[in-house]
């Protein structure tokens, strides 16, 4: 093969592989389906009264100290999720911030904790499989012994959930593991999460993802102003109910479909983007990126082509050098 033909052939091969890549990335893997026995939580912002009992209970279960402000160590002043805060109640206030669950001059509470995605980005990007989605419960857990501290999971999460312990020389990633981590295992013991147990209004409700989604849709179907018996604790076997007039909900359940869905779902009266939820489509990031990556490295095709191209370039340069050298 002369030089001209080799060049033509390699160009053709590159074009063909690029076309193959383009077509196959469209057919990347679909979103993962919810785990068969997926457990989760439903946070209804309209029920939250801001008592922060869930924050306290979470710290108690996880053995984490409160975040003090100044000399006050008796209350928790955590601003956001951190290595010592896996769950935090935040507020969105506009104008006077006087009326709850109203956008204009109102406010709304919002719970920040791991959403336990159905198709989790953090699990997808973790290079050492320290983060795992439990095949049965769908709980996204973290294996400290496997973690290499690369913090890629922090970039892979659309909700800014995994937090690195920067204050520790041998830092770890910290995130909610739905009270089912080693040594706690509340879910395995048939208990519910600490935050759902502590919540006095049922704003944080525990249960299977299917049951919670059903409950959330039931609430959306009710007429605003109608009195509804809100369950508390575990939606499948509530410890008690309380009556309250139904507010005007946003028409979607956050987490039903967003980025492939989440096991921790939210309901609110004010738009979700005001509560800090990112703009997400229905495709999960993991399915897109895994599709691209899977295609690129399929049968090591692209690396092989790249190697071919490089080899050719080097070879050409060496040959060229020889030619020049020969002429001299």
């Amino acid at each position, binding site marked *: 093969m002369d030089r001209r033909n080799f060049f033509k052939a390699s160009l053709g091969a590159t074009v063909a592989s690029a076309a193959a890549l383009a077509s196959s990335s469209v057919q990347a893997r679909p979103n993962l389906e919810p785990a068969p026995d997926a457990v989760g939580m439903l946070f209804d912002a309209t029920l939250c*009264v801001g008592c922060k009992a869930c924050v306290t209970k979470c710290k108690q279960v996880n053995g984490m100290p409160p975040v003090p402000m100044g000399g006050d160590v008796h209350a928790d002043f955590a601003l956001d999720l951190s290595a010592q805060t896996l769950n935090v109640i935040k507020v969105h206030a506009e104008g006077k911030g006087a009326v709850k669950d109203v956008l204009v001059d109102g406010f709304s509470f919002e719970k920040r904790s791991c959403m336990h995605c159905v198709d989790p980005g953090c699990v997808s990007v973790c290079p050492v499989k320290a983060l795992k989605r439990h095949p049965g419960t769908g709980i996204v857990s973290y294996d400290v012994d496997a973690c290499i501290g690369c913090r890629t999971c922090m970039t892979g999460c659309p909700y800014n959930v995994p937090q690195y312990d920067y204050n520790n020389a041998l830092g770890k990633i910290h995130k909610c593991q739905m009270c089912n981590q080693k040594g706690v295992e509340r879910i395995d013991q048939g208990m519910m999460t600490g935050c759902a147990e502590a919540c006095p209004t049922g704003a944080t409700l525990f249960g299977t993802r299917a049951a919670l989604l059903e409950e959330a849709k039931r609430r959306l179907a009710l007429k605003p102003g109608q009195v509804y018996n809100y369950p508390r604790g575990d939606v499948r076997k509530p410890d008690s109910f309380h009556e309250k007039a139904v507010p005007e909900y946003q028409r979607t359940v956050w987490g039903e479909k967003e980025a492939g869905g989440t096991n921790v779902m939210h309901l609110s009266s004010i738009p979700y983007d005001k509560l800090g939820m990112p703009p997400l489509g229905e495709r999960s990031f993991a399915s897109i990126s895994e599709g691209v990556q899977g295609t690129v490295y399929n049968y090591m095709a692209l690396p092989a082509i790249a190697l071919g191209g490089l080899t050719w370039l080097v070879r050409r340069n060496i040959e060229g050098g020889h030619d020049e050298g020969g002429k001299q």
Partner: protein
Amino acid sequence: MAKDSNFSFDASTDFAAIEQRLGVSRRTFLKFCTGVAASFGLGTKAAFAMAEAIANPAKRPPVIWLHGQECTGPTESLLRSEQPTFEHLILDLISLDYHQTLDAGAGHRVEAVKREAMEKYKGKYLLVVEGAIPLAQNGIFCKIGGQTMMDATREAAENAAAIVAFGSCASWGGVQSAAPNPTGATGAPQFLKGKTVVTIPGCPPNPANFLGTVLYFVTYGKLPPIDDKGRPKWAYSRLIHENCYRRPHFDAGRFATQFGDEGHRQGWCLYKLGCKGPETYNNCPSLEYNNVGGGVWPIGVGHPCFGCSEQGTGFNKPMFSLAEVKTHTPPNAFPNIADRQNPTSSTVVAAAAVAGAAVGAFLGATAVAGKKLDGKQAEASQSADKGA
């Protein structure tokens, strides 16, 4: 009597007479006045002013006291008041000219006394309304001496110096104003539109709140500052939830879930049992009830607050339904959605500095070592040259 502005007593203040009349020592008497003034958040000056006002019987304002639809609870609780006792109130602080429960006389005679007093003290008497006023069917559901409560109230309010609605019924209608309210029960402020009515809600109301308000009136000749619902600010400006001694349990998420359960026995927060403290304005946590002591008031004895003094809460919301948390007071502070925990805390900066210093030291040492090595090599080469 002393008339100067700083409320000091002149020599003519006859404490001996007061001691005899009130049956208390001068010391006890002044202590009481200071206590009342302190409960307003007023200073010693006000205490002396009150003492003087009480000591001067000429200032006793005449009082016309009407009863409407009610259980006489406010009067009953006032009868058991200790600071001061009721007899001191009616004999020394006010001149109770008409009171349907307590009047010794009866019938037309008493009604005549009422009219006489209202005529004699026109524009000077204090009107106390106790009980709701039924408006349905021209108020026929409550009549005294052939006169409906509507007419009696309107008539007495006409020339009153001040009007006090005592108890939840008089303040906003109370239990009989709850749906379906067949008698059209209404509170005095809603009935007497356009007139200033001080309300002392509660079922029954704390007599201290009434006495404090009356003493303020006796002392200064005017009513204490009130809020938009006519409640004296000194007593009703804070939610029960704000001052409740079970509040730390609320903040820590420790709730009693059933009467008699572990949490209930431990004295945990009663919010989950339906406590209306977070939506009821009253001073019960700081005053408790009627000086009984020992934590005697609903939340103190383990029952959730019923919201008896709050319009729209007491008798209107189910007893065990969850309350709205109306305000959020410290230690509950909420970060904004956009707030982020700053990971570069001082320790991180320090750690980075230490790490930087270590790297720097290492590089420096390498450079120095390199220099030394260069020097040695140079020396070696020099000596080699010399040798050569």
